[in-house]
């Protein structure tokens, strides 16, 4: 049997992910990366595979993070229940926002999603359950079905890793399905896809809801991992961050968003205590460099480079 390069890559990577806590990396740091990686992969489903740039994905991430935190702290829900409920709220939110936003495409779509996410932010700012400027603090991790306690960082890490792998495989499945192919067709040429009998709006709404649901799951998981939900999760810079992670790694590649979120989270961890406001400047500069120099992202450029070598 011939083992493909891809299989080798993922096997090595998975082994590394299993061993990472013993290689001197903090589980909290790794879990943060994984949560943002889920978020970026969900976002990539829209930008990379359907060509829809949402500028408001923080709405789902933040809203789910609030709902999960609120259910666990004030209503004593179990952790799995709160995770699912938090995610479900983003499904509904995505459906409502999606129905409005898909009425326009391209640049207008980006502006509409941004404006609607700002609406969600103001709702979170004023709603009684979110704790206003303070957010919700001290969210307990709880346990899984009364069997495994999640308070230990290592146990939590393996749970997050499990969720991440499941979602990663799920997204690959979607992209390779007939539905994923139709999405690509719509991205490349919407009128033509419509003329072939596909309801472009239905497909776009479906991918919008899928993406917001998974983004919500990332937010819920993040709330349980770090134990808090704050306004910054619903705010526009978070939407910008997830775009950056996806673009930097490579939109439309499977592994790109994961690499992108690892780089951005690591960068923020390294820089935030040392350089203060310059973090914003550096993130802005990365945006500019990405757009000007490598629009395909790191993984995208690497794949293109390999392709070129193969053909010559």
């Amino acid at each position: 049997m011939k083992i493909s390069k891809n299989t080798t890559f993922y096997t090595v990577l998975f082994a590394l992910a299993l061993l990472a806590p013993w290689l001197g990396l903090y589980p909290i740091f790794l879990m943060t990366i994984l949560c943002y990686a889920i978020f970026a992969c969900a976002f990539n489903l829209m930008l990379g595979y359907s060509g829809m740039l949402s500028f408001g994905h923080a709405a789902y991430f933040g809203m789910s993070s609030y709902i999960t935190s609120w259910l666990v702290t004030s209503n004593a829900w179990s952790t799995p229940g709160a995770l699912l409920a938090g995610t479900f709220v983003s499904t509904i939110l995505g459906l409502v926002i999606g129905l409005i936003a898909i009425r326009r495409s391209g640049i207008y779509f980006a502006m509409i999603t941004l404006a609607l996410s700002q609406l969600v932010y103001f709702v979170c700012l004023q709603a009684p359950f979110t704790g206003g400027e303070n957010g919700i603090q001290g969210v307990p991790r709880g346990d899984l079905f009364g069997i495994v306690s999640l308070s230990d960082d290592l146990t939590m890490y393996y749970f997050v890793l499990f969720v991440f792998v499941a979602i990663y495989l799920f997204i690959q499945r979607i992209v390779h399905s007939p539905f994923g192919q139709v999405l690509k067709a719509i991205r490349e040429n919407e009128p033509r896809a419509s003329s072939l009998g596909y309801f472009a709006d239905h497909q776009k709404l479906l991918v919008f809801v899928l993406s917001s649901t998974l983004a919500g799951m990332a937010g819920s998981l993040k709330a349980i991992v770090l134990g808090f939900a704050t306004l910054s999760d619903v705010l526009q810079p978070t939407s910008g961050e997830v775009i950056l992670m996806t673009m930097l790694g490579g939109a439309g590649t499977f592994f790109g968003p994961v690499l992108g979120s690892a780089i951005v989270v690591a960068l923020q961890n390294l820089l935030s205590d040392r350089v203060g406001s310059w973090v914003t400047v550096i993130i802005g500069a990365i945006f500019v460099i990405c757009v000007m120099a490598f629009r395909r992202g790191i993984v995208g450029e690497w794949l293109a480079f390999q392709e070129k070598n193969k053909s010559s």
Partner: protein
Amino acid sequence: MTEIFGIPIQVILGQLLLGLVNGSFYAMLSLGLAVIFGLLGVVNFAHGAFYMLGAYATWVLLDIFGLGYWWALILSPIAIGLIGLVLERLFLRHLYKVDPLYGLLLTFGLALIAEGVLREAFGASGQTYPVPEVLQGALDVGFMNLPIYRVWVIVASLAICFLTWYLIERTRLGSTLRAATENPRLVQAFGINVPIMVMFTYAGGVALAALAGVLSAPVIQVSPLMGSSLVIVVFAVVVIGGMGSIMGSILSGVGLGVIEGFTKVLYPEASNIVVFVIMALVLCWRPAGLFGKE
């Protein structure tokens, strides 16, 4: 005292005036966005940042160079417009042939850089700017006191908006500009240097944003983040109005400012979100926007 719905009429008129002030800022900013989008096909996310830079330039001119408001009114837009000129040359120029989303992302990055640099240089807290002496005080018009500076802001910005409208819709230069929007290659063939025109159009739109920043400096706190939330509201205004029409963006800007003012009186909790709610409703009813054509 006269009351409407149990609210003193002075309060309503006061909020109406504030709404008109905000509305004229919306109008100036969405106008600039529309002009830039029309010719460059770029949605300028940095528009809020240029507005913020205009206000900071005003404050710096007074604080460091001792040059007052009237100097700032001329110098700030020119200075910020020049920055826009350079940015168009360096970056935006290379993006006209690719997907317009890249222009949005690039200008988003530029806005982040501007915000970060200003926060590092002047701190995150707000600076206050004095109202120029001539425009201090209030006019007593019988039923209420009109703060002169606010009236000045409304009059000045509406004058600038209509001037821009006249320039684009009624002059020779404007007709060339509109022709270049429709078909740049044909206009180029007539011997007009389209790239230069594009460059100055971007600088002009940026200067308009900076001018709004100068006008706003005495009425709000000048802070690095003052533009980032405003630009989102202006995006919503642009979606509501439709980006195709100059007059449309002026009217929807002023109109939405007034509606926001009224909401502050009737139901203050919703005043932050009313523009976004209206945007959602307009999208359901007329996806192309009130004045858009599609």
